């Protein structure tokens, strides 16, 4: 499969589009112009990209829950509940996992069962099965913008339907989908699917409809942030090449104030740097933060503290949008009530902190993290670009194959999985094993020293056992 980071020709896109729209009958009803016209009929306040840019201009942080139910009725009610009781600023529409895996037939059966039973059966909203008209009923019912949500190796038809139905953005991306949602799919294939999605977003942009694309890169599990930032920047560059103009940078917080804030800053700075380097001068970048992906505590008192803690980091880091897990995260798929409780907590914390304009712009611990993180990102990115002869897509594919881009605990058997993180004595994530990552000696010794400090306190060498305890620390009640 030959693949590069070039903008698709109209011809290629048209040809692929025919195939995509033929994947399921509802594809027939998709009309790009009509989709754009629908967006133009919606008020500006229901466009996610516009709303986020406004927040950026005003220095405000918006709250955005993750939501999804199956029937139009269920999904509408869930969204309305979060709009009213949950004080959400932006809504989302989780794609159910059958649809994510293009099992439209099974999703359609699930939907029918849900409609018959009168209670949710699928774990998200099956856009493809519903089709454009039905999916628009959701947008007509609410007053806020909504985003498509959820990584998947093939989100093409979902985007065709979802965007035409007024969803004004998406959270996910090729690399996150590759690392965490595939077993044997080649990265080229996932990237190509996303080039399609990005090109489609580009078409909407060309018709005057801003679409917010929230790249997701890679999920952390005690991961130094460069492990997330680099895949995320790659996703941005892939998107920009296809004409995406509004990018949101997903910061996967892990709970360490200095490191997480450095992550938010370095990610933004380096994204803007590489966008500029490739001449993508008109791409707007905004920032988003979300709670960690590790195991959550069962005890709700503790989860409330975590929701507040991660809201604190988001606000102090100055992100435009703050997501959050919910008090029932460890137990089961969040109920509407659980989500509302959680976001009321987040909103209160935000409302206490944000008006204070507490300034962390020059803070030495954050600066230390920024410096090392930027060095790591440059090292990895420049290597990827070199491997691709300047082409980020070509470089990425090679780098993954050689473990020069790597992730711990990937679901993919094509990933080396040598790299591993461990916490230092303050709870920041450090490289325990750098695998094949092409880091300089300076970077190497920085991490060694930090780990040595932890070992001094522990009184023993850190080991895989330490890593396991780090991965379950938060769910057991503490960062360390």
């Amino acid at each position, binding site marked *: 499969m030959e693949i590069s980071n070039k903008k698709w020709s109209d011809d290629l896109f048209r040809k692929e589009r025919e195939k995509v729209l033929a994947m399921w009958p509802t594809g027939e009803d998709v009309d790009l112009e009509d989709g754009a016209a629908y967006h133009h009929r919606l008020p500006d306040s229901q466009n996610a990209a516009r709303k986020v840019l406004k927040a950026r201009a005003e220095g405000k942080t918006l709250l955005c829950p993750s939501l999804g139910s199956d029937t139009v009725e269920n999904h509408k009610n869930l969204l309305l509940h979060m709009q009213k009781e949950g004080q959400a600023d932006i809504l989302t529409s989780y794609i159910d996992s059958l649809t994510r895996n293009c099992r439209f037939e099974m999703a359609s059966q699930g939907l029918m069962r849900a409609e018959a039973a009168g209670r949710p059966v699928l774990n998200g909203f099956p856009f493809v099965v519903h089709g454009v008209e039905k999916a628009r009923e959701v947008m007509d019912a609410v007053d806020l913008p909504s985003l498509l949500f959820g990584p998947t190796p093939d989100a093409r038809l979902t985007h065709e339907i979802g965007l035409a139905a007024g969803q004004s953005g998406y959270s996910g991306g090729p690399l996150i989908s590759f690392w965490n949602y595939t077993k044997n799919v080649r990265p080229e294939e996932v990237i190509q699917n996303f080039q399609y999605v990005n090109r489609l977003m580009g078409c909407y942009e060309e018709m005057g409809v801003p679409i917010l694309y929230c790249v997701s890169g890679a999920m952390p599990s005690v991961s130094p942030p460069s492990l997330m930032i680099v895949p995320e920047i790659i996703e941005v560059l892939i998107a920009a090449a296809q004409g995406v103009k509004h990018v949101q940078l997903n910061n996967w917080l892990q709970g360490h104030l200095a490191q997480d804030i450095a992550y938010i800053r370095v990610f933004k700075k380096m994204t803007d740097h590489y966008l500029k380097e490739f001449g993508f001068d008109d791409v707007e970048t905004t920032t988003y933060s979300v709670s960690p992906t590790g195991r959550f505590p069962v005890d709700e008192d503790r989860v409330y503290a975590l929701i507040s803690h991660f809201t604190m980091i988001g606000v102090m880091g100055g992100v435009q949008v703050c997501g959050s897990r919910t008090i029932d995260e460890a137990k089961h798929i969040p109920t509407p009530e659980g989500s509302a409780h959680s976001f009321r907590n987040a909103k209160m914390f935000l409302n206490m902190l944000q008006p204070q304009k507490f300034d962390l712009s020059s803070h030495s611990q954050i600066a230390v993290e920024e410096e090392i993180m930027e060095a790591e990102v440059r090292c990895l990115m420049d290597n990827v670009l070199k491997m691709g002869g300047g082409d980020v897509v070509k470089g990425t594919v090679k780098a993954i194959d050689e473990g020069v881009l790597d992730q711990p605990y*990937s*679901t993919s058997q094509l990933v080396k999985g040598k790299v591993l993180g461990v916490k230092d004595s303050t709870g920041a994530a450090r490289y325990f094993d750098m695998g094949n990552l092409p880091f300089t000696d300076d970077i190497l010794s920085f991490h060694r020293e930090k780990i040595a400090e932890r070992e001094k306190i522990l009184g023993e060498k850190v080991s895989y056992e330490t890593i396991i305890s780090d991965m379950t620390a938060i769910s057991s009640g503490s960062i360390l």
Partner: protein
Amino acid sequence: MSKATVVTGVIGEDVHVTGIRILEHALRSDGFDVHSLGIHNSQEDFITAALECEADAIMISSLAGHAEMLLQGFREKCDKAGLKDIRLYIGGQLVIHSEPWEETEKRFLKLGFDSVAVPFNLPKSVLAEMNSDLCSAQDKTSA
């Protein structure tokens, strides 16, 4: 010589792999022989692998809440395939909504599993159980 041979993996569309990866490591460092299947496995995938490596046990992980649906008739298929004495373990987050743990356990025992791990089980206790189940039995056999 390894203590015992174990096939591990995640069933169905489920992508939650971290928990079982941690267990695999714990088992390996404790002397078990681990054949890891990763995510996206069917009942047949587990059976084929277990036959191939003459496994003493199969450990299935599931967090997405679909385990029960996906594992109907698994014990019977194992029996038919000649895996009559194989120990079947399951763990993760087995149900979609909150229910008393005893009820979950009962249903999976009925499905033919020998052991159903409580949610949020830590590697230490899983290891202890595996050792007492598989290794003391072997010790007796070899004695």
